[in-house]
């Protein structure tokens, strides 16, 4: 019992540490992010003043970096769903130290992704027209509904399992943190004391959200792909698009989660809880998704490429040999095949190897979104010379600002909210210690079972 007590104490101290101690590097990092964000805001103000003429987009390639980044962000938002919902459903106990981070990514990247659609609008001042005059027939409206639903659901899903940890912060932190933080903990811990009825309520709420959020997440990225697939453009006119986008979303979500895990582990000394095992397991999951992506690529390209109907020939030429060949082959080899090798081969199957694979995948998946959007629009519809698209400094700056905002929100979240799901880790630890596990006080669906992972 004594050993468990000190173990528990150490876990709580580790979870509390980021909120209590702030280093100089933290301020430097925030200052850097704020500077990039300010630059992005300046670029956006230029765009608001002069219009989208300051971008590289023109009538024939009418979507570019903004829509690419939108699809990318919505994609990585699937990190939270996969790790915390799918792994929770399958009762994989090893997930517990990383769930909270995954849920952070989901909420923050959804907000950033939605922002990029608004940035892309020619008339952001008329945004409310989508609600006032919205038509159910339009894929854009499907997107608005799906993304707002997903954002609401994932915020709830972030909040519910955090309640016991917020109560822990509420009880442990008075006198150590500013008053506004304590106020947040008091409000959001909603009077949690951890008695039986509270545990049961939370358990059924988590179980319900966990089951709801999986179909919502799948629908979101399917609908995002339908913005493209509902048009009469050759490269987008594909039945596989929805499934392909969902797979790509989970794939890139895992990659971003691995990167964030590595960073937070280093900065906040979480080595005891986030171990090589977590990197390996997530690496295996990422590899599984990479194989689905490879399969999806082959399946789509062989059915089209065998016949080369219509503009298929032009598209394949630009993708495999022409303007986009560098991007495409980096994506296919550097983003799909090499990461598989890095996570599977025994020599690189360690933290470094997996993180390197995750970085490759993240970059590759952004590039994949880029050539889906831009190469898709470049295929000529009428007898004219194919257009070209070069993003301008405004687009690069706004995009950098968007990524800075993403990092900033995560940074702030980490400083205010518990990065580790303390109660879940503790439960998992206890059930692993005392085998066979005692009858859990939380219903089966939520309690981590013995020997999970």
């Amino acid at each position, binding site marked *: 019992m004594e050993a468990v007590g000190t173990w528990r104490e150490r876990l709580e101290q580790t979870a509390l540490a980021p909120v209590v101690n702030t280093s100089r590097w933290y301020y430097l990092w925030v200052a850097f992010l704020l500077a990039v964000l300010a630059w992005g805001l300046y670029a956006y103000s230029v765009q608001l003043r002069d219009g989208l003429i300051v971008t590289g987009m023109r009538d024939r390639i*009418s979507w570019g970096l903004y829509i690419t980044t939108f699809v990318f962000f919505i994609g990585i938002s699937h990190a939270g769903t996969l790790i915390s919902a799918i792994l929770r459903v399958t009762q994989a106990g090893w997930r517990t130290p990383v769930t909270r981070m995954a849920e952070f990514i989901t909420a923050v990247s959804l907000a950033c992704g939605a922002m990029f659609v608004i940035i892309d609008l020619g*008339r952001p001042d008329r*945004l409310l027209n989508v*609600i006032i005059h*919205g038509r159910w027939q339009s894929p854009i409206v499907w997107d608005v509904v799906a993304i707002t639903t997903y954002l609401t659901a994932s915020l709830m899903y972030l909040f519910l399992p955090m309640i016991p940890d917020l109560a822990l912060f509420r009880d442990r932190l008075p006198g150590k943190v500013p008053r506004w933080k304590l106020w947040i903990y008091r409000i959001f811990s909603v009077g949690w004391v951890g*008695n039986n*009825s509270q545990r049961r309520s939370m358990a059924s709420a988590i179980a319900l959200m966990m089951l709801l959020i999986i179909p919502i997440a799948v629908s979101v990225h399917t609908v995002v792909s339908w913005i493209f697939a509902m*048009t009469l453009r050759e490269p987008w006119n594909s039945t596989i698009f929805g499934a392909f986008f969902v797979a790509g979303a989970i794939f890139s979500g895992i990659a971003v989660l691995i990167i964030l895990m590595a960073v937070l582990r280093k900065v906040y000394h979480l080595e005891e809880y986030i171990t090589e095992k977590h990197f390996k397991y997530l690496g295996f999951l990422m590899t599984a998704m990479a194989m689905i992506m490879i399969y999806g690529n082959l399946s789509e390209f062989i059915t089209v490429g065998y016949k080369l109907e219509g503009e298929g020939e032009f598209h394949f030429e630009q993708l495999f040999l022409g303007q986009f060949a560098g991007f495409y082959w980096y994506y296919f080899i550097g983003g799909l095949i090499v990461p598989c090798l890095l996570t599977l081969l025994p020599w690189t199957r360690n933290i470094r190897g997996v993180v390197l694979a995750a970085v490759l995948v993240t970059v590759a998946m952004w590039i994949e979104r880029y050539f889906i959007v831009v190469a898709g629009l470049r295929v000529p519809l009428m007898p004219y010379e194919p257009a070209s698209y070069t993003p301008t400094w405004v687009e690069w700056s706004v995009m950098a600002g968007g990524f800075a905002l993403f990092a900033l929100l995560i940074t702030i979240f980490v400083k205010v909210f518990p990065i580790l799901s303390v109660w879940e880790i503790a439960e998992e630890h206890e059930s692993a210690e005392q085998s066979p596990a005692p009858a859990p006080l939380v219903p089966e669906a939520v309690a981590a079972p013995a020997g999970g992972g």
Partner: protein
Amino acid sequence: MSEGDHNTGSEEPQEAPGLNRRHFLKYLGFGAIGAAPLPILPSLLRKTLDQKTVRSNGAPALAPNGQIRQWTMIIDLRYCDGCQSQGTPPQCTTACIEGHFSPEPMEWIEVYEAELPGDGTQFIPTPCQQCQNPPCVNVCPVAATFSTPEGTVLIDQNRCIGCRICMAACPYDRRFFNWGSPPVPPEALLADYSAEHQVPAKKGTVMKCDFCPDMARAGTLPYCVQGCPNDAIYYGDLEEDIATNGEEVVSASRLLSQNQAYRLKEDLNTKPRVYYIPGHGEAVGRDAFTEGRQPTEWPWIERAKGAREWKR
């Protein structure tokens, strides 16, 4: 969770199982009732904000049989030489640009030079195809682009949010965006804006050929028909089965069926209202192997204040 150990929990008396579930279901029910009015929210908002519904200007034109006219365009490619013989830019495009003050580089009716099977070229003047199954109207999130009873597709630039999904959806590349503040000559500022004329152009919105139904109702022909020196473009009404190029009045159905007329990308089932009679300008003496045409000009652009050039 300092008090939240497993031990403290078990000391409490067990509550009746299902109590929380009942509460939960109750709240869920209240939630559902609360969310029920959401679908009518947009119409409430519309009422409160008193937004006018967009439609074309006036009532639709009626054919002699009392039915609404169904505007159509028939382009006789045998008579189109891309204005090679005139030595000018295509005059349909120029007239359209003059009439609508369409900003550079928009060519609402664009004369494409397409290759023929035997290596020569043909000229294809291409306005908006006014589809009866319009992909652009289907995808618009705010009904800024809409089909009219006369069978045309219009855009209300006062409602358009500039998301450009219609441009992605149009299979004919017939939609154009005001990427910046569009250059406008002084006289255009005096015009009364309507979705049927789209003058003056508005920043951050989509534009395209409007098929000039306002002119047809007033008894004149669209700018492009008037501008064509070879009378290659017919404008008419499928309901009354009548079409004219400004010189002669013909039966539209007869003109179409006797000359193997076709529509662009028929296999997409967009059902365009613009028909083509195959040819390469041979009726006005053009040789298929004489390639090239004069580049389009925007004659009024010099009078426009603050005009900026942007390329497609």
